[in-house]
């Protein structure tokens, strides 16, 4: 049976210093910025790197965020963290993995304009204090902010690869500082046998597969045009799926929430108590209706074969991808598998427009992560990391500014990691 010991090293503060080290007594992580820069800049596509710290309550704003990663390192057992990218694409999710809880590596950067109307980077802010902080889960973490400067002359596909490789390597490097220490706490995750009368619940985790800059990777592979596939939740914990999604920030598929999947965590919590956690189905989405239907049927088929009587479906992105998620819920219901679908609402700013592109009567349980178009006022801040201007504009990123919540990282997190929702008024 696949069993993973996840060893937690809490981080209460993060500082820059001479040597990268984790102090178990004070829970302080010290980072050698020079070493981080050396690691990253050996890639000729990356011309420069600013290394900064952003702590909860700091009077600063991070902009142009690409992705967030929790520092993790495989300490024993086969395979490694971020398989298919930092280690071979062999099965992972067993042995011992160390994590720096409460710390995060936050990558920022600006892709050269792609010219595409969909496959492009969108604004992405995190306020560490003030009224905007409540909207982002990453105002709560001690962040090592890596602001990349790209060397000219490469294509976006190459930059994407370089940025991901560098960010994941730094995350692994930080966690490696705990390698020889005993954790503050440790939990063993396994889908052991339970009372057969408990209902099985599977998790259908939709991930973006629109194309470059708006996708995700499974053991390093782009899932575009792939059928939904089954994984063990422990594989997610080891970074088997990572985000490569720089589209709307609020609903973005973030690596941090693939490693710390809020739904998988919740289903593990009640495993053997209220239900049996049957496994995770990672599902891309499709462009044509016929493909959406086929993909949804496949997700439901896998759930049925895992013995599920219920499924949680989490959508990714809006519009197009919401239809796939709603179809997956419908396909499950038609197989008598009861389902709940977590998704974002795309009403207008005033909130008086229906917020979903499709409704199917079978989906009688929808969980809302809020209306992404509602506006939020962000005040002027003392300091900005990641860029002086908002993407593609002359608007200064210090503010004050008025943004739709979709421009705040994690505000409408469809992976289930945040508390924003919308109600009828």
């Amino acid at each position, binding site marked *: 049976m696949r069993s993973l010991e996840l060893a937690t090293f809490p981080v209460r503060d993060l500082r820059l210093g001479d040597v990268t080290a984790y102090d178990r007594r004070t829970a302080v992580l010290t980072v050698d910025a020079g070493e981080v820069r050396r690691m990253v800049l050996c890639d000729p596509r990356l011309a420069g790197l600013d290394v900064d710290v952003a702590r909860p309550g700091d009077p600063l704003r991070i902009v142009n965020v690409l992705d967030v990663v929790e520092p993790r390192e495989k300490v024993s057992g086969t395979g490694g963290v971020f398989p298919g990218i930092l280690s071979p694409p062999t099965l992972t999710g067993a042995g011992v993995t160390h994590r720096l809880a409460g710390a995060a590596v936050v990558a920022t950067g600006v892709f050269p304009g792609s010219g595409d109307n969909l496959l492009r980077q969108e604004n992405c802010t995190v306020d560490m204090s003030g009224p905007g902080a409540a909207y982002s889960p990453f105002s709560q973490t001690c962040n090592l902010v890596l602001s990349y400067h790209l060397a000219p002359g490469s294509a976006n596909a190459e930059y994407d690869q370089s940025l991901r490789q560098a960010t994941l390597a730094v995350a692994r490097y930080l966690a490696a500082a705990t390698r020889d220490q005993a954790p503050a706490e440790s939990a063993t995750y396994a889908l052991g046998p339970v009372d057969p009368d408990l209902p099985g619940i599977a998790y259908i985790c939709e991930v973006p597969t629109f194309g470059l800059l708006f996708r995700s990777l499974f053991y390093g592979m782009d899932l575009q045009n792939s059928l939904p596939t089954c994984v063990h939740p422990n594989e997610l914990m080891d970074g088997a799926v990572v985000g490569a999604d720089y589209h709307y920030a609020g609903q973005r598929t973030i690596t941090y929430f693939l490693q710390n999947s*809020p739904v998988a965590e919740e289903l593990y919590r009640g495993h053997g108590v209220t239900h049996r956690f049957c496994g995770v189905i990672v599902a891309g989405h499709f462009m044509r209706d016929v493909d959406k239907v086929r993909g949804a049927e496949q997700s439901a088929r896998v759930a049925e074969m895992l013995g599920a009587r219920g499924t949680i479906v989490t959508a990714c992105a809006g519009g197009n991808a919401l239809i796939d998620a709603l179809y997956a819920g419908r396909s499950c219901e038609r197989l008598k598998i009861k389902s709940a679908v977590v998704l974002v609402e795309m009403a207008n700013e005033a909130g*008086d427009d*229906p917020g979903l592109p499709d409704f199917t009567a079978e989906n*009688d*349980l929808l*969980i809302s992560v809020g209306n992404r178009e509602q506006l939020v006022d962000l005040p002027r801040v003392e300091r900005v990391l990641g860029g002086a201007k908002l993407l593609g504009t002359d608007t200064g990123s210090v503010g004050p500014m008025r943004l739709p919540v979709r421009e705040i990282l994690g505000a409408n997190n469809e992976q289930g990691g945040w508390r*924003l929702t919308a109600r009828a*008024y």
Partner: protein
Amino acid sequence: MKEIRLVHYVNQFFGGVGGEDQAGTAPMLRAGPVGPGRALEQAMGPGARIVATMICGDNFFAERRDEAMAQVREWLAAEQPDVVVAGPAFSSGRYGLACAGVCEAAAGLGLPVIAGLYPENPGVEMARKLAYVVGTGENASSMRAAMARIAPLAGALGRGEDPGSPEAGGYLPRGIRRNVFADQTAAERAVAQLLAKLRGEPFETEIPLPQYDRVTPPAPIELGKALVALSSEAGIVPRGNPDRIESVRATRWRRYTMAGGVSPDVYQTVHGGFNNDPINADPLRAVPLDAARASAGAGGIGRLHEEFWSFCGAMMPIAQSEKTGRELAVDLKQAGVQAVILTAT
């Protein structure tokens, strides 16, 4: 603290003019509270005062609505109250619709307004987005209870306060979605609700299914003789997008010629809802001129209009879709088009 100034609207019956025989009564303005206004003033306590009461016969309002509303608007503009209350009209249909008219007039002047209506009163649908509709019983026997709910809401609105959620503020949901922070994460809520659903216990969706219009198709026409047009939602524009059609939440649409074909040298998509590459490589997949011409040649359709009607539907709010749809339909009709092939993405 500043006294709240309130204007109240009642019909001829509650205004003490008379019953059904007086339903044609023209609008009149009385100083101070009249009839149920006294109970409202009492329920609101010493901080609030009804400065004027507008009275109108139900038939007058129904039959000469524009006139009645103009009068109401004039009085409200002159009085500039802090809050307006209409009714309660309970389940009375004509009175309810008159209250909705008062709500429209007040909302148009930027004045906060409350209507008291039985939830099935036809006035509710008209008023609830403009006003705060307080649900009442079916008839006047529930007057006291209705005023007890209207009074605190009128106080809050009169002081310029946010009345909070429908439950807290005692009004019917207005069809507006507003973001709030829940106590639990979406994952925690999803699992808890699914477990309830699996146990057969009550569970509650966070997004109720909306009711959309159902369109009944008109009777079939003889396609072999008809003038047929192509229209696409795919955001197809001349290269460079000279009319600056928006990629998402578009407000504009255009007619473009197909006389020189629909080639990738001439046309591109600006649609913000799908990977643009396949359609940029071959815009015919969005505007099927090749198939339509073949059909016209074979007699499947009569004639093909030489222009296509282009719009971009990505993330378009329903209200904008309805406006675009109406404009397209009118323009197609004017062009003599009898049938349209509408391609969506």
